[in-house]
């Protein structure tokens, strides 16, 4: 045993270290340590105690570890004591560190030796090191686990972000980016196979309205439910689907279908999608029904298309978009398959858009005006400005041909700006020239894209720049637009209303008419859509609808315009239904500014004859009653005030001096009082728009003032008479200095003269002669001004009449009257300088055909274009006229036969470029030269005509009627 004891302790410690360092877990290490220590020391009990708790113990049944006794025993290095149920035991302990102790207890007789105590201490020390190592390792493991967890977490977040980047957060579906990628993959897979790939764009009809009605949260809910249903319809089976569903925009979904055998397969899927959405959606307490429009585009199978896949994918998606737009155009809830024709249309559309952009800059847009007429008396109360595009090659285009294109780009904003500016400019021009058309209201159409606060600023500036009363301008907004932009447009409309411009609800009845919308917005007029009007005379139900609309509008304080009135019967029904106004071909087509101005001007002859406007002229489309323009109650009220004030002015101003003059001794107070009454009335008149003060008041006042002067001369004697004549001379000079058109000045002078008169007379009667004289001058100057103004109006009127008499209203070139005038003039010139001149007569070849086939509007358009071409083809000194129908004539001064032939050739050439319906508008030309071929006007005309006929016969052989006529 001696040998043994020398090494025993060391060996045991080595075995202990080997035993406990196997484990990497702290708990397991502790267990192994207590077992090994008990084993080495042949002890029944061993425990590792840390901070009053037993970490590991051996020697006690589970759940019977006497912790307090062990902890107590551990506080002594060695001892003998009772320990739980074991009875008296020997104990020995060794500290690992300041918190942990290793305790052993042995039953029986033998206590612990010094050597065993050393061994325990050694084991405790080894255990401490081992535990520290294990803890470090454990800590490292934890750190590693933690960092691995963090890495996993980061990867998860990265995956999530990547997912979010490619998916829509509301529905969880792929977004446009991912869809494009999937489309590329689909095309790649389809390459070299006979299978087709199709793209379907699904767009909710009227989602904006639904969203506004439900609220955005509910709207989102609807979209999410819809997405689920679409998903179900796209992937009907449980297996992996060949199709991809994506949400590409607010209310737009897209499906990419793969491995289709035919286009019909794609249509089947589209129909499946539509029928999946037929059942209403339960949103909150409401059932909401939706309809979708679907555009389908199919990529050619196994195409050896040179385009790269990305381009092909983008094209496919775009084609589906085009098809969807087409489906929408066809009506809601439709499905349309893209075809090449659509691509052609698209290309054309793009082409047209760039032309339109250039056209807008080059000033190719025109405004035409269509009158709005009072149903009751046929008076024109307003004009609707409509835009036309004078396309360099396609001719005159109506809004339907280019506005939809403009609306898809920012062009519409530019066009909208131009329309407002041009309408304001035109109004202002009419106003400057005192045209009657300046008194009616002009309404312009506003598109959806325009309805922002910029529009308010734009209108405000335009009105200011042209010095227009805001009441002269109205904006027409379509019902659909109003509803779709209900939230944003409300404030804009309010601002416009505050500005004073009128607001007209266009196309009423085509959208989802809602009383709440009508009530909410400051609309003052409804325009009933033409679809109601067209059936008005035949369908009693339409009449009922119109009647209801009129009643409703009246209740909301709005007036009603019926659009598209083409027949008298329709007008009669409208009159019976007490519709306020009407518009349509029955009254007038949209016409250029000058034409419409002439239409509105009072008949010049009558004006010349009587010096008064045509009173109460209800003849359907004539007669601007200057004070009849505004239809609303406010305008009516203002007109009444105007008339009353005018009457007071008329009576008060002259009555003052008359009282003064005729009552002996002069009741100055009464006279001045009456004059002041007149003055105040005049001031009220000044507050009103000038146009509302009819010229008749001015004329009447001037007449009275003249009588007054005459009376003054007769009664006040020679001195006054001399002064009066002096007044006339000075006033004439002063009036000349004023621009007589400025009626304001005329008014002021009349007022001043009226006030001055009594003072003059008082002065003559023995008062202040000088003051009387000065004021007298003013009175006379006033009269001169009035006369000058009247004369100028007269001159303008005459000029207009002449113009009108010698112009063709349709084409703007001269008419037969002008031709005769010019011919007479040339004959006179010939007598003086023997200058030759030629006459060309031109007849359009297929005009009748065009007119019949394409309608009168198209025919008119052709005539206008021909007129333009003729004007461009001839020289400056030549005169172009339209003799009537499709016959034109050109009078070419100082032109012989050679010149005339040359001119005829050029005209023919140029006319060849005018096309209609894809074919050139041909023309036959006949000419005659004076005096070589005819020595009178009649002969000249006859000669040119016979040449024309001959050419026609030559070009159209086999026409027996024509041949017979030629022979005759």
């Amino acid at each position: 045993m001696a040998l043994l004891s020398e090494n025993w302790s060391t060996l045991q410690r080595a075995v202990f270290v080997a035993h406990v360092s196997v484990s990497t877990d702290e708990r397991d290490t502790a267990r192994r340590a207590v077992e090994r220590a008990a084993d080495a020391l042949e002890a029944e009990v061993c425990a590792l105690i840390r901070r009053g708790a037993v970490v590991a113990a051996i020697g006690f049944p589970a759940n019977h570890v006497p912790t307090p006794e062990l902890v107590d025993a551990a506080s002594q290095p060695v001892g003998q004591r009772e320990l739980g149920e074991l009875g008296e035991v020997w104990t020995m302990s060794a500290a690992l560190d300041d918190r942990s102790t290793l305790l052993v207890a042995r039953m029986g007789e033998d206590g612990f030796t010094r050597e065993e105590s050393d061994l325990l201490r050694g084991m405790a020390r080894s255990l401490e090191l081992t535990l520290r190592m294990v803890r470090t390792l454990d800590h490292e493991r934890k750190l590693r686990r933690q960092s691995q967890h963090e890495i996993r977490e980061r990867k998860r977040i990265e995956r999530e972000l990547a997912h979010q980047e490619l998916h829509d957060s509301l529905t969880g579906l792929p977004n446009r980016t991912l869809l494009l990628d999937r489309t590329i993959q689909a095309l790649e897979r389809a390459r070299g196979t006979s299978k087709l790939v199709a793209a379907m764009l699904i767009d909710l009809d009227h989602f904006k309205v639904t969203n506004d009605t439900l609220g955005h949260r509910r709207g989102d809910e609807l979209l999410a439910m819809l997405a689920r249903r679409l998903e179900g319809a796209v992937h009907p089976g449980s297996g992996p689907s060949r199709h991809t569903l994506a949400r590409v925009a607010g209310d737009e979904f897209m499906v990419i279908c793969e491995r289709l055998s035919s286009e019909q397969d794609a249509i089947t899927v589209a129909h499946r999608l539509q029928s999946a959405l037929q059942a209403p959606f339960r949103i909150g307490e409401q059932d909401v029904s939706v309809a979708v429009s679907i555009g389908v585009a199919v990529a050619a199978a196994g195409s050896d298309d040179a385009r790269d896949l990305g381009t092909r994918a983008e094209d496919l998606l775009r084609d589906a978009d085009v098809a969807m737009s087409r489906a929408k155009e066809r009506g809601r809830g439709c499905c349309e398959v893209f075809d090449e024709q659509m691509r052609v249309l698209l290309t054309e559309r793009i082409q047209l858009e760039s032309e339109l952009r250039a056209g807008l800059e080059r000033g190719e847009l025109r405004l035409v005006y269509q009158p709005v007429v009072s149903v009751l008396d046929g008076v024109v109360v307003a004009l609707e400005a409509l835009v036309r595009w004078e396309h360099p090659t396609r001719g005159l285009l109506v809004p339907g041909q280019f506005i939809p294109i403009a609306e898809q780009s920012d062009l519409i904003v530019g066009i909208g700006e131009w329309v407002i500016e041009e309408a304001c400019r035109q109004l202002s021009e009419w106003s400057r020239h005192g045209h009657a058309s300046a008194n009616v209201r002009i309404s312009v159409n506003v598109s959806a894209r325009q309805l922002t606060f910029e529009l308010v600023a734009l209108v405000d500036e335009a009105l200011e720049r042209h010095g227009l009363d805001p009441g002269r301008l109205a904006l027409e907004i379509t019902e659909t637009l109003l509803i779709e932009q209900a939230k944003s447009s409300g404030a804009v409309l309010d601002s416009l209303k505050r500005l004073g411009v009128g607001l007209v609800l266009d196309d009423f009845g085509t959208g989802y008419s809602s009383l709440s919308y009508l009530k909410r917005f400051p609309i003052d007029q409804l325009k009933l859509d033409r679809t109601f009007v067209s059936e008005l005379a035949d369908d009693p139900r339409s009449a009922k609808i119109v009647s209801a609309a009129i009643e409703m509008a009246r209740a909301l304080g709005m007036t009603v315009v019926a659009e598209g009135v083409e027949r008298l019967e329709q007008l009669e029904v409208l009159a019976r239904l007490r519709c306020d106004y009407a518009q349509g071909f029955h009254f007038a087509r949209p016409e250029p500014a000058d034409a419409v101005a002439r239409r509105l001007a009072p008949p010049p002859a009558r004006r010349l004859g009587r010096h008064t406007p045509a009173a109460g002229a209800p003849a359907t489309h004539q007669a601007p009653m200057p004070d009849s323009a505004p239809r609303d109650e406010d305008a009516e009220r203002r007109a009444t005030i105007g008339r009353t004030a005018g009457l007071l002015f008329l009576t008060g101003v002259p009555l003052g001096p008359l009282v003064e003059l005729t009552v002996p001794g002069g009741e100055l107070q009464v006279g001045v009082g009456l004059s002041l009454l007149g003055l105040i009335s005049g001031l009220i008149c000044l507050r009103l728009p000038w146009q509302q003060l009819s010229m008749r008041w001015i004329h009447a006042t001037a007449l009275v003032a003249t009588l007054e002067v005459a009376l003054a001369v007769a009664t006040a004697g020679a001195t006054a008479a001399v002064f009066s004549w002096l007044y006339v001379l000075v006033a004439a000079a002063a009036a000349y200095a004023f621009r007589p058109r400025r009626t304001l000045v005329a008014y002021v002078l009349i007022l001043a003269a009226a006030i001055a008169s009594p003072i003059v007379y008082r002065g003559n009667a023995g008062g202040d002669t000088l003051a009387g004289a000065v004021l007298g001058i003013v009175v006379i100057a006033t009269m001169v001004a009035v006369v000058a103004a009247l004369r100028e109006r007269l001159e303008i009127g005459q000029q207009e009449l002449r113009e009108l008499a010698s112009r063709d209203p349709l084409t703007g070139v001269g008419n037969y009257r002008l031709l005769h005038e010019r011919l007479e003039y040339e004959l006179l010139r010939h007598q003086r300088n023997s200058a030759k001149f030629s006459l060309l007569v031109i007849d359009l070849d297929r005009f009748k055909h065009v007119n019949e086939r394409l309608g009168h509007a198209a025919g008119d358009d052709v005539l206008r274009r021909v007129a333009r071409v003729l004007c461009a083809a001839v020289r400056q000194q030549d005169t172009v006229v339209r003799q009537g129908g499709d016959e034109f004539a050109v009078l070419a001064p100082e032109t012989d036969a050679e010149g005339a032939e040359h001119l005829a050739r050029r005209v023919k050439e140029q006319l060849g470029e005018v096309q209609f319906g894809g074919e050139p508008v041909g023309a036959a030309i006949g000419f005659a030269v004076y005096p070589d071929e005819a020595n009178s006007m009649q002969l000249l005309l006859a000669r040119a005509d016979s040449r024309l006929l001959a050419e026609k016969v030559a070009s159209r052989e086999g026409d027996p009627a024509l041949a017979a006529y030629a022979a005759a």
Partner: protein
Amino acid sequence: LSERWIGVGRSADPDPGRAGSQATGEALRGADPRLLIIFSSSAYDPERLLHAVRAAAPGVPVIGCSTAGEIATSGPGQSGVVVTALGGSGFSIVTEVARDAAEDLRAAGAQAASCLEAIEPREHRALLLLTDGLAGDQTAIVRGAYSVVGAQVPLVGGCAGDDLRMSRTVQFHGDEVLSGAVVAAALGSDAPLGIGVRHGWRRVGEPMLVTRSAQNRVHEIDGRPALDVYFDRLGAPCDVRQQAEAFVRFSQIHPLGLVSRSEEHVRFVGDADFADRSLGCIAEVPQGSLVWLMEGDDASVLEATDAACADALAALGDQPPLGLLAFDCIARRGVLGEEGIGLEVERVAARGQGAPVAGFYTYGEIARTRGINGFHNQTLVVLALA
């Protein structure tokens, strides 16, 4: 006051049914049997044997195992069955089984030992364990049992054998015939229970250091291959160095002695790996341990028998034994020979003063009375019940 009886029956009838019935009938010598313990030859069909035992004593708890030879009062035997019965109100007994012990030996030991908590409190207690000696490191099973039982209650028992075929042993528990299991019976008695543990081996030569080992496999001793050191130090003959069977016969009488504070734990060397020159022991040999080669002879082994019996009986105080249970290592049988073991059993019976003796030749013995180690090799463990 306290009724206790112990009966032992044996049968060598080759028919397991008849053998079971006969041995059980013989063992049931009193009323109120509380436990039957079967030690049977592995030659019997264990199912039929158990069925016969159960039929003979319906409802009585049963534990048991196969053996490498049975011991009864009349002497040692092979190919037979010995049934021990414990009865009377002085005993309280609860049994438990842990199946598939190899999956977690420690847990199996703990589970089997859990029956101790269930017995009604008696002054004297012990846990009887019968394990599958081929299931793995038996030390772990004993440790597991100790962690549940604690230092207050001794552990006693042995590892089942299969007549040295070393292929499959069986354990009995209730109606079940198991293999790879640990069966246990918690014994509570009003009278003392004594345990004696002796091996009778002597150290040979100088101590050696285990320089490399893993569990029960010893790879190097003193820095050299373990097998070479073993052969050289013992001067092993040629056939032992080459043949496995000859090696086992040789190693049975040349175990390793593992030094602890006050005693040697004997480790039976079960096999040799002639290729990697390592030794396989029946239980753990920790790396860094000091070991001796051991040897024994008839005299020393029989001395140990006497001492073990004396220790067990001494623990009973002045009370006479009612019966003795002996767990005798198969290796001791190799040392003593057939004649020697007859003598040994005679000596045990003589010490028992007429009390019946039962037991079996084991593949490892269990007796924890002090410290925490309770697994032994090439040792005789005697449990005396008063």
